[in-house]
């Protein structure tokens, strides 16, 4: 009876040790999760490109959205919620890419308007000259 109790106690100790070790390891690993550096850098690069393209003027809302996502991603990193941080960083990047695309679109449209006006003005000028003759 006594030996039985001892064996059970030893078994229990072994189980506890295993559990304890496992928990320890898990805690150790969880305390140092890697931040999504790659996504964060990609997001920052994209935002910098957008700003360089003058997106603040042509696609301000999209650029602001990208910056908001990046700030949220940084906050998530601080809270060690890395999966969330990664997603937010990716959202920041795609928002910045959209800002760039819409900036290019606005610029292209402006060029076309200018060209259209030029051609119209020329046509009108021609018309005027034609009328004078």
């Amino acid at each position, binding site marked *: 009876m006594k030996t039985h109790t001892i064996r059970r106690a030893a078994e229990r100790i072994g189980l506890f040790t295993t559990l304890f*070790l*496992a928990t320890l*390891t*898990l805690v150790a*690993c*969880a305390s140092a*999760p*890697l931040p*999504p550096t790659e996504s964060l850098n990609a997001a920052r690069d994209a935002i910098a490109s957008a700003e360089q393209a003058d997106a603040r003027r042509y696609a301000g809302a999209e650029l602001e959205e990208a910056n908001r996502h990046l700030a949220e991603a940084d906050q998530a990193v601080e809270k060690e919620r*890395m*999966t*969330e941080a*990664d*997603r937010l960083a*990716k*959202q920041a990047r*795609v*928002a910045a*890419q*959209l800002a760039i*695309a*819409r900036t*290019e*679109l606005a610029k*292209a*449209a402006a*060029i*076309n308007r200018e*060209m*259209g006006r*030029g*051609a119209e003005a*020329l*046509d009108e*000028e*021609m018309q005027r*000259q*034609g009328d004078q*003759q």
Partner: protein
Amino acid sequence: MTILSFLKPVPGLKTGAVAVLSSVLLTACATSPTSPDGSEDVRAKLMELQQNPDMMTHARIELRDAEAAVQLAEQPLDDDEAALAAHRIYMADRMVEIARAKGEIGLLEADRALLGEQRDAARLAARTREADQAHADAESARSAQADAAALASREAEELQRQIDTLEAEATERGLVLTLGDVLFATGSAEIQGGTNQNLEKLANFLKQYPDRNVLIEGHTDNVGSAAFNQNLSRQRAESVRRFLTGRGIESRRLSVYGYGFERPVAINDSATGRQQNRRVEVIIENRE
């Protein structure tokens, strides 16, 4: 340790792996696949772009990427993965919008080529018109010049012809037409016969050249007193003026002088010389 390391959570699971897993799950649960809420909207937006041939031409790569993102967003997920579903839908939505923007940029650039062509065409038309105009101007200037020159030469010819007809003499004072004394009876200021061919020609000439004024000068020989001759010469000149005003020439264009025998053109000691001195000179003044 191998067991422990297996237990280690893997941070940042690759979406590719998720996709593969989801595909496996999808295949496994093919009987009841439900896409996350909101993915239909993104799919609809994408389809709209895919059905537009212009978009397919100008944003082929972006549409392909968007298609992949939408497919990922459509993967069914467990209820506790709503955040992941929302993330995928967000990504898909923005990629569709990027594709739309790229497609529109492509269209604008294509339009630009067209606008450039239109502008070139307008320019070309302008230049052609200018060139035509310049050509026409030069042509008309040339012909106007030619016309003017031709007219001037015709006029000069005509004047010369008239002068020849009048048998007038071109001098510094103007054209001098000498009407001999045969025009008048001796001692008389009346024009003989009422008409005279030379005077008719003179009247016609003055009608044709209304800007020319005329001096009519009467001259005599030295027979008789100076006062008599002066008076006679003036009366003869007056007779000529009357004749011309009778033909419609304005009298203000006609000035009359009587010089008597002051200005002989020949010596008065012979009959021939005296006859030459008895004359009326009509001087048609040169144009200023």
